[in-house]
C-alpha cells in the first residue's frame, strides 16, 4: 500500500498502473499459471485484496493476491486462462511486463480467527485468494486452533497447488481433497465439498470459516455452515465480479447497494443476507 501511495502522489492518477516485471511463471494445471511480478517499488497488501492487472492493448482485470506480501515486493498472481486479458497474460514470458494497480478491496478479517478453529472451503480456482490465508495460519500456528481445508476440484488434474497441499498437510493442516469426477489414478474423495462436513472435526459454533469458489458452492457452503451452528458474522467469503476500475467508480461490480471492489470483495454471510448481496 505504501509503495503505491508513493507512486500515486507522483502522478496524481489512480488509473496509471505500476509496471510489474514478470520474474517467474509456474504452470500449475493445463490452464492455470502462477505469475510472480516485481514492481519498481515494493507493494504491501493483505490476503483477500486484489490488483487490477493489465496488458496494454488487451485490457485490465481484477486478480486477487495469491501470496503473502514479502520484502522483495513480488505479489504472486494465480491466473486461469478464460478471457481476452487472461489469455494475453498467459502469452507473456518472464522479463515482460504487466500493468499493476492496487491493492484494492478490504481483505480478509484476520482478528476473528484468533484462538478459533478455522474451516477453509475452496472450490477450483477459489483456492487462489485463500492460499495467503493458509500461509498465514502456517506461519503463526499459535494464533488459531485447528485448521481444516476442504478443497474441491472438477478433476484430479485440475487441483491447483497440489504439491503445496502436501506441504500444508505436513505443517499441521487437515486437508480434505475431493473431485467431481475422478480418473484411474484417483483413489480419493469424489463429490461436492459440502458433502464433507463430517470430516471437519470441530465445534462449528466456535469456529470461523473462509470460503471461495463458484457462486453456487459459496451459497451452499455458507448456508450449511450456518445450519451447523456457525454464527453468520464468522462465515466469510470473497466474491468475484466483472470490474473496470477497482475503485468504486465504473459501477460494474454492483451487488445490491454495495460495490464488490470497495465494500468487498470480502463479505460475511451476515452482510450478504442483510444487504441482499448474493441474489
Amino acid at each position, binding site marked *: 500500500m505504501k509503495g503505491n501511495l508513493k507512486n500515486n502522489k507522483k*502522478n496524481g492518477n489512480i488509473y496509471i498502473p505500476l509496471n510489474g516485471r514478470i520474474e517467474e511463471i509456474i504452470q500449475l494445471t493445463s490452464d492455470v499459471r502462477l505469475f510472480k511480478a516485481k514492481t519498481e517499488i515494493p507493494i504491501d497488501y493483505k490476503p483477500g485484496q486484489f490488483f487490477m492487472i493489465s496488458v496494454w492493448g*488487451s485490457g485490465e482485470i481484477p486478480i486477487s493476491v495469491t501470496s503473502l506480501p514479502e520484502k522483495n515486493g513480488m505479489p504472486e498472481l494465480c491466473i486461469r486462462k478464460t478471457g481476452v486479458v487472461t489469455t494475453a497474460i498467459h502469452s507473456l*514470458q518472464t522479463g515482460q511486463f504487466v500493468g499493476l494497480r492496487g491493492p484494492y478491496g478490504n481483505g480478509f478479517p484476520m482478528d476473528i480467527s484468533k484462538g478459533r478453529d478455522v474451516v477453509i472451503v475452496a472450490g477450483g480456482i477459489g483456492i487462489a485468494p485463500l492460499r495467503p490465508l493458509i500461509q498465514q495460519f502456517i506461519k503463526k500456528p499459535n494464533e488459531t486452533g485447528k485448521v481444516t481445508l476442504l478443497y474441491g476440484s472438477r478433476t484430479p488434474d485440475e487441483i491447483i497447488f497440489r504439491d503445496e497441499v502436501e506441504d500444508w498437510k505436513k505443517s499441521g493442516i487437515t486437508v480434505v481433497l475431493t473431485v467431481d469426477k475422478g480418473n484411474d489414478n484417483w483413489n480419493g474423495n469424489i463429490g461436492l465439498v459440502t458433502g464433507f462436513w463430517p470430516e471437519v472435526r470441530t465445534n462449528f459454533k466456535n469456529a470461523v470459516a473462509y470460503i471461495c469458489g463458484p457462486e453456487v458452492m459459496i451459497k451452499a457452503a455458507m448456508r450449511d455452515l450456518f445450519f451447523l451452528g456457525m454464527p453468520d458474522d464468522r462465515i466469510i467469503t470473497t466474491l*468475484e465480479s466483472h470490474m473496470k476500475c477497482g*475503485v468504486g*467508480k465504473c*459501477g460494474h*461490480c454492483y451487488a445490491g*447497494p454495495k460495490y464488490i471492489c470497495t465494500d468487498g470483495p470480502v463479505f460475511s454471510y451476515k452482510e450478504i443476507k442483510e444487504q441482499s448481496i448474493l441474489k
Partner: protein
Amino acid sequence: MKGEFILDRNHLSYWLRQMRKSRELIGPLMDGGKDIVFKSVDKIHELVLDCPASLPSPKEFLFPQYESMLRFTPLHLPLTKGGQGGVSLSEKAIEDLSDKTKRVIFGVRSCDISALSLMDKFYIEGHKDPYYARRRENTLFISIVCNNPDPTCFCIGLGTGPYLEKGFDIQMTDLGDRYFVQIGSHEGAKTVKAMSFLFRRPQKTDYEDQYEVFLSSKARFHKRINLEGIRQMILEEKVKDDFWQWVAGRCFECGGCVYDCPLCTCFTVTDRTYSEGIERVRLWDTCMFKGFTRMAGGVLPNEKMVKRTKRWYYHKLIYYPESLGGFGCVGCGRCTITCPGKIDMASIAARLKGLVLNEEEE
C-alpha cells in the same frame, strides 16, 4: 465572497465575450432547429436561454461519453497482434491524457447543477477520479433560474430547482431587462470581480422582481412528484415483484435513461490500438445491458431484465440516499422524453402512487 449583483441585459454578451478570452465558452444552442445541445459557442447571439432542457445533460463536459485516459507508447519492441507482448517500458511510456481545458458552461439549469453536488461526492470522495476532478476544477458553471419549466420537469418536488439556495458558482435570474446575479462559490466571485464594472448592487425592486420570478416559475410546473413517498413504499415492501416484472416487460434495453441522466455515472474501459500507441479509453456504459456484469467464462449474473430495471430504481431511490445523501434523480425529466417504454422515473412514480391509491380504495 458571496454576493448579489445586477447585470444589465445589454452587458451579457460583452461579459461572456470577455470570459471567453480565458475559458472555452459552452452554452445551450439549437441543434438542427429541434433539440437543445450544450456546445462550444461560436456566435454568442445564438445562445438559447429560454429553452427546454438540453438533451443530453451537460455532464458530458465533466464525464464525456468517450474519454481517452492514458496513452501507452511502446519504446523498443513492435506491438504484436492485439497489442499483447510485454514490451519493455519505462514510466515515461505512459502518458496521462486528462483534459485540463478551462471552461465556462453558461445557461445550465438548476437541476443539472444540483446533480453536480452528488457527482462530486461520488467521483471525488474516497478514491479520487482524476479525470472528473480535473475537469470539475477547471469548469465554471453559470446557471439560469428556470422561468419556463418543461411539462416533463419535476425538480420542484425534490428541492433541486427551479432555483437554488446553494451549490452553484453563479446563478442568474432573468428579470427581463436585467439579470439578478447571485454568487455561490469562490470561483464565481472571482469571475464577477474581474468584470465588476459591469455589475451594480441590487435595489429593493430587483429583489421583488426576483421573488416574483421564483413564484411564477414554481406555479408553472405540471408535475408534482414525491420521490420520498415512493422510497417509503419500496422500503415498506409495498411494491411487489409483479410490478417490477411489468416494468421489465416494457424496457427496450436501449440505455437512453442512463445516458441522458445527469446522475448516472457508470463507464466501461477499453484499450484501442492506434499507430501512435495504445489508448486506454473510457466510455459511458449502462447497467440496463445484460453484458454489463458479465464475468469471466461468460457468466451473466443479471441476465434477467427484471433484475436490471429494478436495480436502476433501487439505486436511484434507495442506495443513492444511503451512500450520497440524496436521490439519484434531480427531476430533469430527460428520461421521460427519452424512454420509449414509458417507464421513466416520473411515470413509475405516478403509477406507483396510483397503485396504492387504487388498493386503498378497494
